[in-house]
């Protein structure tokens, strides 16, 4: 066998999506519940700084902190960035500014979106206020975004020597006990990422052969072992494989287990046998289901052959081939 011309490399969409369930702990729980109730909270450190959004541990001293305070829903932009092309899942679907906002009474800034007509309407030092989401359930998105506030502007020049703005100095954080009815203790954070997966050249060659119901492995030029499925490199020698070798179609069950629990998203009736099969000519076993024989009659050494289903990329399963079992010695090295 020799190298076949390379088929066009395959690729296909891969969506990675999960609704993560996140428990919050006391400080984050109070903050997000506060947002639901339109009460912006911060946390005071032992040296008197007010952190908004409140974190559980002091970034400077690493101390655990939990003394909650209420701050104002208004604040000052400390920096901004105009986002002309919002991406999926971002707070606003029309062009907006990302802003860091120091709420009045706070010493640190919160990241969120600012709804403004255009970049000309945004500047560092501008006064903004929270626009609450109409429906709030205890999440950072309970702040729909910020919007320009009519209060006096603080412009970059208006910043005082201590780094605070004049309006912010007027506002003082007030103690808050963090108590709310029906505290939010967790959030569900759905996350979807879209990828385009490419299995690479070796897998593409393998899949192209499978489409013709042939199993084609690749031989290592150094140790001469035949890899099925091929992975592009001989894992023991660290060199590329390219010489193609057709193996099978028959093989030997080297070991197996009987599956008695239904796996999610798999439409296979239990019990069934999941086996390691060393195809004739291959130097390691692949994994497949065994059918065409009662599950409790499958045994190590059973000789099997593939059964293809209409349109299947892989054999649907393997069934007993009409020949005697293989000797243990014949396959024990493949176990």
């Amino acid at each position, binding site marked *: 066998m020799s190298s076949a011309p390379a088929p066009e490399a395959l690729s296909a969409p891969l969506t990675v999506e999960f609704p993560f369930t*996140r428990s*919050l702990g006391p400080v984050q729980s109070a903050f997000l519940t506060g947002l639901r109730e339109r009460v912006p909270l911060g946390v005071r450190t032992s040296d008197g700084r007010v952190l908004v959004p409140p974190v559980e541990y002091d970034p400077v001293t690493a101390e655990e902190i939990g003394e909650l305070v209420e701050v104002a829903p208004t604040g000052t932009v400390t920096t901004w*960035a105009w986002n*002309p092309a919002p991406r999926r899942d971002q707070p606003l679907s029309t062009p907006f500014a990302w802003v860091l906002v120091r709420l009045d009474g706070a010493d640190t800034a919160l990241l969120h979106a600012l709804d403004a007509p255009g970049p000309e309407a945004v500047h560092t030092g501008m006064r903004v206020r929270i626009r609450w989401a109409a429906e709030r359930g205890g999440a950072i998105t309970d702040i729909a975004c910020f919007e320009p506030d009519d209060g006096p502007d603080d412009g970059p020049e208006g910043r005082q020597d201590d780094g605070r703005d004049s309006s912010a100095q007027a506002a003082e954080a007030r103690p808050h006990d963090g108590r709310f009815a029906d505290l939010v203790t967790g959030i569900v954070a759905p996350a979807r990422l879209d990828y385009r997966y490419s299995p690479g050249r070796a897998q593409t060659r393998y899949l192209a052969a499978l489409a013709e119901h042939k199993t084609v492995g690749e031989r290592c030029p150094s140790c001469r072992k035949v890899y099925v499925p091929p992975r592009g490199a001989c894992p023991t020698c660290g*060199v590329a494989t390219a010489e193609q070798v057709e193996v099978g179609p028959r093989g030997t069950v080297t070991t197996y287990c009987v599956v008695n629990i239904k796996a999610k998203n798999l439409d296979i009736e239990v019990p069934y046998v999941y086996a390691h099969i060393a195809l004739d000519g291959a130097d390691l076993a692949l994994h497949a289901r065994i059918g065409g024989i009662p599950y409790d009659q499958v045994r190590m050494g059973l000789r099997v052959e593939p059964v293809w289903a209409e349109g299947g990329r892989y054999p649907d399963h393997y069934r007993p081939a009409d020949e005697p079992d293989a000797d243990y010695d014949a396959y024990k090295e493949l176990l």
Partner: protein
Amino acid sequence: MPDAPDVPDVAVVAFGQSEHRANTADLSEVEMLLPVLAETLGQVGLTAGETDFTCSGSSDYLAGRAFSFTMALDGVGAWPPISESHVEMDGAWALYEAWVKLRTGEAETALVYSYGKSSPGHLRDVLTRQLDPYYLAPLWPDSVSLAALQAQALIDAGHTDERALAAIAARDRTSAEENPHAQLRGSAPPERLLDADYLVRPLRGHDAPPIGDGAAAVVLAAGDTARRLCTRPAWIRGIDHRVEPHALGVRDLTDSPSTRLAAERAGAFDAPVDTAELHAPFTSQEVVLRKALRLGDDVTVNPSGGALAANPMMAAGLIRIGEVAARIHRGASDRALAHATSGPCLQQNLVAVLEGDPR
């Protein structure tokens, strides 16, 4: 802390990298990595599996698959079994782990590699998953937008302006004309760059790194082994890394205290360097780093073109170390600084100082 007399000196003795491309859909990770490993080991006459220690860096989130690094190990020839480790970080930190291993005396040589394929996913979205999962990630603030917030803070503070940022981009991409591995080479003059639309204001396309795929590898060796393998080893005189608070709103975005501290600990300020490779994926971040590292105009910055010419995630930091080492190997530098970063707006930074023996 002063070295004990018997702690071995460790040097970079070989460095290799892939041709960085926007898309390598024709290759699996290991297919992309394999030639880089072979070429790098080959520089010092080694083959797969021959180093005493191996350490790599990569990220499952780029690949969209859990345990993605286990398949990359196929390219290493881990048989007979090898002493090996992996960090879910840029390869610069894998190099750090290997450096520590060599300093214990348990190993004399180490292979360090890292790789990242950004092309399968949408990097700006993927990197949002790196943020605080309660307050930040649900807003999906993308990496360019976060860098733009930092850039605006620098402009407000009077540290730079859009024209100066364009000049950084033009300089790096012009330097990259000499770098056959670069993904982006050449640039219009800064004035013309300013004609382009904003990507996220105040950043334009030229201020951001190219998104692409690539791999890099380094061989480390200790003491006499390094001298045997390489005519002019690039000795790691110091290496250190530091992290900052995660939230942008508690940091001064115009400064990088972690870089400064890492540089101090790495001995960067003990004597001048002639070259610096900075892992500044955005032009504005070079402004921050130059200040933190006190780099004057007499220092050659990013002769490779830096991360603005090629920024393969998880490898771009390691490449900075490799690039200065390669310059020391060929006598183009005597004392150089390499920097790597990770996290939003330079949250975590590593600084290494490398030297060649006197000529």
